[in-house]
């Protein structure tokens, strides 16, 4: 018996050595891409042909509680010391924290590595990736105007109409939205399924950033308006108290769900509405979109080029592909339900009478999103947005659920800010 074990162990060691030899012998270039989910990875693997001899290494860390930013920061701060094959070659960033990287030396001017044509992209996506001097550091492969996504059948029941134009006319201001919420409740429906569902609609219209020039934390009137509205919605039973990513909310997207409105951009359909698309319990086709009470956008994935990458040419090629390659951008819209960052491609779909999303009951979502892009403004962002937005929602959830009073909930938020960003001065 002992001999057999010894033999097995010896063989394992030999194999392990062989495996090591094998990988080190192949001296290909390594492209390290940092991301927080698999969304872009899927598109990349489908639509981008990696040159022979290059291995793509995805480093994926969920963004919850800032984990992705921490991982990325470690890698970027270590960038100059890392070996060529271990350097970050490209990384993804979201609207909520893109400034942190764009405004630092950790990213480089992409016009210098060969990405120069932004004529087709939407202006705000370039603005977001530009530092205060106007140097462009990255591109977004998607444009993210966010719409009100509603259930046609519930709208029919509550409003008596279900077509987007008619629904929009009845929901184009917050006052109307609240009035309709009361009607929905009377018929046994929820207006929204999460206490934070409308957060982005308010927060994107803020007239001031989270912190002022003296680094003092400040509450914009829009944020206060959101708190006030949510308070009302919860005490009146217009909404569920689930978090925005909670299963309880997602379950409302099933056919059996009782919720009329969700908010989200094009990526929301495939990324978050899996339950609605479920062949057995879903309700594909029973959905439609309109602008809703206020124009806003949500998220968006930017590709940024870090300083010190050893694959600059390749990175530039990837960026160009995802904004300027007509074929790829077309595929993103046609096959992946994305709203691409290529105006020409989007215009083609928007004006195509034969194009329509089956999920949205044949509605041409690209046409709706195209109109909404004019209203997107990129302003009042800080490097702290992701965790301040997340932290405020988490702290206030306690208040909305009735566990603490508002003062206590806000204090918990301030304590969180203190722990997370010591430089921010709290009230």
């Amino acid at each position, binding site marked *: 018996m002992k001999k057999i074990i010894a033999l097995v162990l010896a063989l394992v060691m030999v194999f392990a050595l062989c495996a090591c030899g094998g990988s080190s012998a192949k001296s290909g270039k390594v492209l390290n891409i940092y991301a927080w989910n698999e969304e872009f990875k899927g598109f990349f693997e489908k639509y981008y042909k990696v040159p022979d001899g290059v291995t793509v290494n995805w480093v994926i860390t969920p963004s919850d509680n800032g984990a992705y930013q921490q991982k990325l920061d470690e890698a970027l701060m270590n960038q100059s010391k890392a070996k060529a094959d271990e350097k970050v070659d490209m990384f993804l960033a979201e609207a909520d924290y893109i400034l942190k990287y764009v405004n630092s030396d950790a990213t480089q001017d992409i016009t210098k590595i060969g990405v120069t044509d932004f004529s087709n992209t939407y202006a705000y996506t370039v603005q977001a990736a530009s530092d205060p001097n106007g140097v462009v550091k990255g591109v977004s492969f998607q444009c993210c105007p966010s719409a009100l996504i509603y259930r046609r059948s519930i709208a029919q029941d509550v409003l008596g109409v279900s077509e987007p134009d008619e629904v929009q006319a009845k929901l184009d201001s917050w006052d109307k939205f609240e009035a309709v919420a009361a009607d929905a409740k009377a018929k046994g429906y929820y207006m929204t399924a999460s206490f934070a569902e409308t957060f982005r609609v308010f927060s994107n219209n803020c007239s001031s950033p989270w912190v002022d020039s003296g680094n003092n934390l400040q509450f914009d009137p829009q944020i206060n308006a959101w708190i006030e509205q949510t308070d009302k919605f919860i005490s009146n039973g217009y909404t569920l*108290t689930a978090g925005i990513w909670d299963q309880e909310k997602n379950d409302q997207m099933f056919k059996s769900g009782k919720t009329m409105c969700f908010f989200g951009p094009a990526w929301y359909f495939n990324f978050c509405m899996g339950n609605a698309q479920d062949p057995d319990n879903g309700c594909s086709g029973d959905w439609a979109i309109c602008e809703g009470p206020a124009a806003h956008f949500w998220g968006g994935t930017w590709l940024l080029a870090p300083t010190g990458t050893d694959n600059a040419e390749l990175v530039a090629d990837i960026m160009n592909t995802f904004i300027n390659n007509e074929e790829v951008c077309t595929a993103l819209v046609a096959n992946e339900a994305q709203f691409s960052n290529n105006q020409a491609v989007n215009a083609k779909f928007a004006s195509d009478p034969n194009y329509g999303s089956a999920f949205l009951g044949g509605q041409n979502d690209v046409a709706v999103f195209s109109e909404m892009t004019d209203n997107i403004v990129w302003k009042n962002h800080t490097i702290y947005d992701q965790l301040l937005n997340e932290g405020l929602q988490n702290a206030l*959830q306690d208040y909305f659920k009735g566990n603490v009073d508002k003062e206590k909930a806000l204090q918990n938020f301030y304590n969180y800010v203190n722990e*997370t960003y*010591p430089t921010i001065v709290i009230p």
Partner: protein
Amino acid sequence: MKRKKLKESGVSYAKWGYIFILPFFIAYTLFTLIPQLMTLYNSFFENYRDGLMQIGPNFVGLKNFVTLFSPDNTGSIGMLKYMGNTIILWVLGAVPQVLVALLLAVLFTSYRLRLKAQPFFKTVIYMPNLIMASAFSMLFFTLFSPVGPVNQVLVSSGIAEKTIDFLSIKVSVRALIALMNFLMWFGNTTILLMAGIQGIDQCLFEAAEIDGANSLQVFFRVTLPLLAPILVYTVITAMIGGLQMFDVPQVLTNAKGTPDRTSMTMVMYLNNYLQTSKNYGMAGAVSVVLFIVSAGLSLFVYNTLSKPYKEETKKRNRI
């Protein structure tokens, strides 16, 4: 005379003893003592990150400790609150854990009961300890979520009218954390206590019975006093582990310590400082306080629990 001579010319084996214990002291110095001193050192500095910018380290004296114990706008002191949470969570889990473990240990070692299939039971009660705490916690999170199976059963059987949000009620969150810690550790404690009981001379039990003691008397007059050293050890290690409670509440509440931070433990609080801001100064200060509290409580428990045992030993020595 002879003795002295032997010492001069003889071989001392003591150095082998020292050589054999050396690796431990090297490892202890490298991996425990130095980090501990570094933590203390760090706690006197302002040292954190703002975005991609490093701020400090700048010497600030005791400022971090002052901040730690300053009340916020609502008048509550975070550090004390989290310390209280930790102690409550630990006591809720540890008291039943020690009691049940004691009972099981006595049953398993009883020569009168002679329980069959003992290895099987021992394996089963030890099993939960083999699961990763985070996985265990995730399991409970899924079980007790508003759309989880527990709620489904409660609602469909009519016990509850509507879903109960277990994870946002203070009592249920704390109870769940205590339950998990209990399930994970009572097996371990049982095995330790069994070893302790088996170390007691069987004659003593038999003698007590011949003298007419009933089971309760045997337990309180023979087993418990002789088990005291092991019991003290168990309680102190459990307490140090309990004060460092982190993984279970962290995963169950997704690092938030919901509701109202009432399930946030000291180490979760420490972790908050280490995440985004990499605030080694404040985290160091929390660690130092945690160390002082652990040391103080350990001494207290050691002195109170082992006092009767010590007196017993003294008495016996006198005889």
